[in-house]
């Protein structure tokens, strides 16, 4: 397994600084998973900030909030587990 990190973000645009800290912390090969209120960042309005990132969005959290997938790849709970298993470590930004 290559030494990569899964970053998990669960806050929305009210915490814009948090997204910036998370983006600053991304290394090559890392992935970003948006969960809970973090899924608002996957709206196309913000796509420029997330350009070029290996991006995943938790589907039940999108659906709960009346959103459909606009950027990145959607994953279910099983996909969430697969992502954590595919990376050396997980970092929660909350």
């Amino acid at each position: 397994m290559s030494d990569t990190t899964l970053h998990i973000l669960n806050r929305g645009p009210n915490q814009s600084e948090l997204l910036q800290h998370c983006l600053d912390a991304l290394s090559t090969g890392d992935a970003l998973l948006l969960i809970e209120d973090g899924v608002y960042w996957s709206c196309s309005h913000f796509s420029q900030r997330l350009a070029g990132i290996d991006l995943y969005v938790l589907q039940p959290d999108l659906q709960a909030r009346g959103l459909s997938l606009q950027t990145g790849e959607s994953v279910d709970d099983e996909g969430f587990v697969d992502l954590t298993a595919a990376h050396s470590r997980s970092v929660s930004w909350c």
Partner: protein
Amino acid sequence: MKHFLIISRQPPYGSAAAREALELALACALFDQPVSLLLLDDACYQLLPEHQPMGIGQKNLGAMQQSLPLYDVDQIYVCQRSLEQRGLEPEALSLKVKTLDPDALRALIKSHEMVINV
């Protein structure tokens, strides 16, 4: 009679804050207190249509929101800048709202005796 203004800043479902703001607005209305609701920042997302929160084990806030006009909570305000920062249009929201610029926001606060941030 005191006029209540409830200010909500949080999106739905991530915490109980959005539900608590709605409950407070309905409680004011039940006691015949005139009440207005102001949605700032991520609270704009509360009014996106077609929530389906069953998958995360939560109750849909939509029914509660749609009951607001029935209880005469029909003064619902949204910050124009918050909408713009999120690429949202007022027409896309599930309730009829009035959008406010900063001047109108100041005037709104001054026109209420009780202002509560939830």
